[in-house]
């Protein structure tokens, strides 16, 4: 019983860390983007300030039961996925002393599907608000997802087929044994997954889903107050999850929190940097982009993996 209590505590700690890291990365990105555009920009804690503001709103409105449920779906998906991803390497001392969370040994196929759970809830909530911009944003988001999932799945299939496992922990263990990160042993798959991550994070050029000027932020446009606050929290956790997944799969996982932070931040800067120098793609251009070189690289990765 005590073990379970400790694990739940660890799970809570993991969730809080995921939330804090995700929010801070978002803040840092805002600051950096502002400096690149020669603005002063907000502080790097701006996201926390925004969240406190949103949560302290006295009035909140919703447009129906799905609008009420949508933020719950997002945060539920985020917390569930977090429980199935090894945040730290299971062999590390940090893991056993600080984060003995409820790791249920994530299976990659399961995670792929579980990560969609939140988007689906978001889509339904946005649909019920009755704002046409929200629905338009959702259709764009879903279409774009079909685009980037192809190279992403190709990359994962390459790993799964080559090492005959679908478990993340096994893939981490394999990197431990060989001493080579997957990003070097399977470079093409890594590149395909990296391209896919550009779409996942929805920075420019793939930010048409919530294009601020055109769609009034798209899917989230009718959400405010505590609802938007919860969505932000879920979104931040999700950003952390995606990064951790990439670190686990391609960079050998992390043995300590600082290591995790360095690796995830380095990864996070890829879509951010790419966004700074790219104009916005239309949806069909974005899909075509993902079905072009990234998919070709992914196929190459699979062929090499099978070879």
């Amino acid at each position, binding site marked *: 019983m005590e073990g379970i209590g400790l694990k739940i505590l660890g799970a809570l700690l993991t969730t809080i860390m995921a939330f804090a890291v995700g929010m801070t990365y978002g803040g840092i990105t805002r600051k950096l983007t502002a400096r690149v555009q020669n603005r002063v920009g907000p502080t790097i804690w701006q996201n926390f300030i925004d969240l406190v503001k949103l949560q302290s709103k006295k009035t909140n409105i919703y447009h129906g039961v799905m609008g009420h449920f949508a933020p719950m779906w997002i945060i539920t998906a985020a917390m569930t996925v977090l429980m199935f991803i090894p945040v730290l390497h299971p062999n590390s001392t940090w893991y056993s002393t600080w984060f003995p969370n409820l790791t249920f040994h994530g299976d990659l196929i399961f995670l792929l599907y579980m990560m969609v759970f939140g988007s689906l809830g978001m889509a339904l909530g946005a649909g019920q608000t009755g704002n046409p911009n929200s629905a338009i944003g959702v259709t764009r988001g879903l279409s774009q997802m079909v685009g980037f999932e192809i190279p992403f799945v190709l990359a994962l299939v390459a790993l799964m*087929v080559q090492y005959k496992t679908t478990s993340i922990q096994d893939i981490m263990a394999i990197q431990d044994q060989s001493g080579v990160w997957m990003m070097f042993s399977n470079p093409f798959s890594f590149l395909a997954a990296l391209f896919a991550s550009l779409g996942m994070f929805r920075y420019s050029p793939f930010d048409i889903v919530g294009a601020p000027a055109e769609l009034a932020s798209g899917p989230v446009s009718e959400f405010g107050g505590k609802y938007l606050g919860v969505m932000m929290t879920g979104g931040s956790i999700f950003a952390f999850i995606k990064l951790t997944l990439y670190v686990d799969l391609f960079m050998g996982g992390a043995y300590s929190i600082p290591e995790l932070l360095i690796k995830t931040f380095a990864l996070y800067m890829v879509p951010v940097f790419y966004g700074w120098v790219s104009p916005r793609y239309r949806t069909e251009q974005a899909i075509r982009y993902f079905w072009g070189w990234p998919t070709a690289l992914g196929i190459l990765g699979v062929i090499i993996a099978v070879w």
Partner: protein
Amino acid sequence: MNTLALIILIFFSGATLAYLSSLISNKLPGWVALLTTMTGTVLFYMSFQNEQALSFSIIGLNLEWALDNYTILFAHIIFGLGILASLYSVQYMQNKSQQGSFYANFLLSIGSMFGIIISKDFISFFIFWEIMTWSSFLIVVWNGIGFRKNGIWYMAMSAIGAYAMLTAIVLINSEIGTYSLQAFFNAVQENAIDNLMLVSILLLIGFAVKAALMPLHIWAPRAYSNTPASYTSVFSGALSKMGVFGMGLVLIRVFRFSGLQDNFDYALVSQFTSHVLAWLGGITAAIATLYALVQKDAKKLLAYSSIAQLGYIVIGLAIGTKLAVMSALFLAIMHAVFKGALFMAVGAVERQVGTTDMTKISGLIRRMPWTFFVTLVSIIALAGVPPLSGFVGKWMLYEALITNGNFFLVVVVFFSSTAAFLYSYRILFGLFLGQEEDDTAHVKEAPATMVIPMVILALFLIVTGTYPGIVFEPIAHGMEYLGFTDVTWNMTVLSNVWGDSVNLQYVSTTIGVAFMLALIFLTFKGRKGTRGVSTKDISTSGEIPLEHENLTFQLDFFKPFERAAAPLYKRSITKIYEDVANGLEALFDFTRKIYTGNGQTYAIYVVAFLVTLLIVVQNML
């Protein structure tokens, strides 16, 4: 009297009775049908655990009927869906005319489906197969709308399938001298059939038509969307599974466990055929999904989605490993459940609102909350998102493909199931979300007898999402009949041959706990300041739309995606068939120029022939 014969008899006499009762009152047939399916179902469930067999001979042909575990698996689908659909049907068909012929055919097709699966000889198999085809055909053309467009494609394709099957049956009989299925399987084991591959492929063609496999699928969207919803749920849910039933027998029992895998040629051809079928299944899934997401009519959308889902099932059967077959049979059952529920839900909308055109309706969620709930649950299961049972089937299919080394096929499957999110959202949004319209303000929830069957199906999806073992048990027994040995399964843990696993109980518990926490937080925090507003109360760039304006986005829903995938939309199988038909017509026109039917022309031919002959003979001499 033997129970099997009794059940068949009940359904067939029920069909007659339903028709006759319509002469008294148009309301009666629905109740007769419900009573008939109830009796049949109760009778089946009371006796299915006993060994049952029946054999008799008519005009020198030995007919054998028997129950086995594989049969029972499909009988669950037929009776489970049949009884719910007939309960649903009573109120659904309330104000429609000509109910007598509808219910007669409804019962005939349920009875004949049961007949197909219990048949242990080709003669009764084929007879029941044809009764099923004809009764469903008569329902497709029942409302008299678009007879040529809808009916003829179905009939033409079914005829192709039936002729292929009949040829195969005649070939088998000429080789082994009997029509018994068991004798056929035995002969396969002993390698006593010379053109086994031809026979198998012909049989597969016959089954592929009903399973709507590319390129024999073109009847399906039209036929599914043109039948009354209470029958469509059976049509798409159970009747299409008859194709799966047959394919399972051929692909697993004949191809995989024939004992002929040592024979090199045979192994090569059977593996090649299986691979072709698997890829056909994949292409079917992908293309049908692409077509589903551009549909404007909810029923048509579901029809295309049915084709796509059957594609997955065919893949599983064609791959033929233990996990793959298990996933195929699991998906077959789940498809029957969620597609049955979805067609019922869309039927409820059709009955209450009068149309299923998604560009005409929107915002029904508050008017029809139960229907929405059922649709939502079924769609989540269809999309394969955890924690509902659709995920279980999808997971097993993916793992089966990956562990078997079909890595490109898995990407095709993944593409189509990701694209399936698009049409999943389309149907939920199109019918239930968006702004509420004044036209639909009066709409009420469907009557209880329609809602209850749907909700039962939805609850089944939720329960089996955490405890799929309930369904694994009959599947495992069915697979043992097909020839697999020690099929293992677990109540809540899924695992593949590499030893990776997912514990569904953990998944649902985590989701449940997280969801409850979020629910409590969001509902109770600042409860006084939280209020719901109408869907018209929105801000669009500072403008507030007027009450009578409807801004719901419905037309060209996925236009950007269509543009991106434009090359995939270019070719249409229907057009190819029509081109072939036109070509044939031109050929026949040309033939008509020769065979004019005019005696004088024929006389000229005779003279010309004789003259030619004379010249040729003279030259040769």
